[in-house]
């Protein structure tokens, strides 16, 4: 019997279509597929969800299959509240984040979390601009008031989008803010909507939301990967190997997540201190870049060191307790 396989679904698709046509599973293997993927059955399979395929007997699950089912459920739970499109963005960007992910899931949180906050504030500004246009159109304010307030909002937006602050907002550098947002007072009066505004808000909110989910998916996968290592040692090795794997892999996962959290916090603080010392002003993309850079570097280094110490501490505990 071959071992089960897993893959991460990359786009929304019907469960039955996935099973019968894309995977083209023979009729005999379908009950097993249904048994391994109970949470997906008869639903739309969302991007990011883990799908398990095995050609083992349908009447029982191997320990490895049970472990994979647990992993799939953990990933599914960590994605609750994520829409299809958000999950799709996350899956499409996952390979970029994966190298950081394997050393410390919190690194994702420290870096993408900060960026998603930045994107949220851009989204808030876009909404403020839209509200301002609506108030002006309904006659609640004079032209002078409208143009003065819009100038202030555009100035704030320009600060937010300086340099790397533009990344992920879908707003390219095309000159004036009005052109970037596709705003024309004339066309607004005719159509009643800001051209491109809705699209920008959709892209920004989608990215912000999917990025902030990265931490929890990362942690679920980290813990799942550790559990799979234990499972593998227990299925192929002796009993002592299995027990040793529990200590070592458990220690590695716990210490890497713990030290990555500590490292991310320390990194953001140290980077903040360095940026202030060099006179980078607070607020806007400059400070955010400091926090993103410091936080990710700190959590990456902390995750790597934590993995090393966790492994050694696990070995030590195993020797003292089990031998």
């Amino acid at each position, binding site marked *: 019997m071959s071992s089960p396989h897993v893959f991460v679904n990359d786009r929304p698709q019907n469960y039955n279509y996935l099973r019968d046509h894309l995977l083209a599973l023979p009729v005999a293997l379908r009950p097993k597929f249904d048994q391994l993927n109970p949470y997906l059955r008869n639903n739309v399979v969302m991007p990011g969800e883990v799908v398990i395929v095995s050609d083992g007997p349908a009447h029982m699950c191997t320990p490895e299959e049970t472990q994979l089912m647990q992993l799939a459920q953990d990933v599914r739970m960590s994605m609750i509240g994520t829409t299809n499109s958000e999950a799709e963005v996350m899956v499409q960007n996952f390979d970029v984040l994966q190298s950081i992910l394997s050393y410390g899931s919190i690194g994702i949180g420290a870096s993408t979390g900060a960026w998603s906050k930045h994107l949220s504030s851009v989204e808030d500004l876009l909404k403020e601009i839209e509200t301002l246009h609506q108030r002006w159109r309904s006659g609640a304010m004079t032209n002078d008031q409208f143009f003065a307030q819009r100038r202030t909002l555009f100035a704030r937006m320009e600060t937010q989008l300086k340099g790397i602050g533009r990344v992920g907002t879908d707003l390219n550098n095309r000159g004036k803010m009005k052109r970037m947002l596709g705003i024309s007072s004339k066309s607004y009066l005719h159509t009643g909507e800001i051209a491109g505004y809705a699209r920008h808000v959709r892209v920004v909110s989608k990215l912000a939301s999917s990025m902030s989910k990265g931490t929890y998916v990362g942690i679920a996968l980290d813990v799942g990967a550790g559990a799979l290592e234990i499972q593998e040692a227990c299925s192929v090795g002796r009993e002592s190997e299995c027990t040793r794997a529990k200590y070592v892999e458990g220690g590695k996962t716990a210490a890497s997540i713990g*030290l990555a959290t500590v490292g991310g916090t320390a990194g953001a603080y140290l980077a903040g201190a360095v940026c202030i010392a060099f006179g980078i002003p*607070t607020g806007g993309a400059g400070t955010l870049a400091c926090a993103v850079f410091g936080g990710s570097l700190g959590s990456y280094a902390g995750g790597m060191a934590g993995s090393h*110490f966790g492994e050694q501490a696990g070995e030590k505990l195993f020797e003292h307790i089990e031998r």
Partner: protein
Amino acid sequence: MNNDTSGWIAMVMCGLTLLNLILLLFSAYRKLPAAEQYLTGCRIISDTKRLWKGNGPIAMLNRLGAVALVFTLSVLLEKRGLIDRNETDQVPLSLRFWTAGPIVGSCMLLLGAVSLWLMAKIGNA
């Protein structure tokens, strides 16, 4: 370094990490709100609060870092016009210790852990 020594060092590092995490979370959830109330006029605090809304651990830890910056780099921040010294002077010493202490501790722990890990890597090479 033999295996026995490095095993004990790893145990100590894991213990310190756990202790530091507990202290960080205690400070973030128990001490930070009080400290932020004293520093309502500091721009660096209001900017950070606006960026890190909510009560999630990542947001709270980042805000704790900003408060720690105020207490550890007050002279520099005052020069840049980012804090009001009258406000920071009003914060009780114990509150400053509780907010800045765990962050400074986490920096020392990170530097120590990364140095030891690099030494171990060089030793193995």
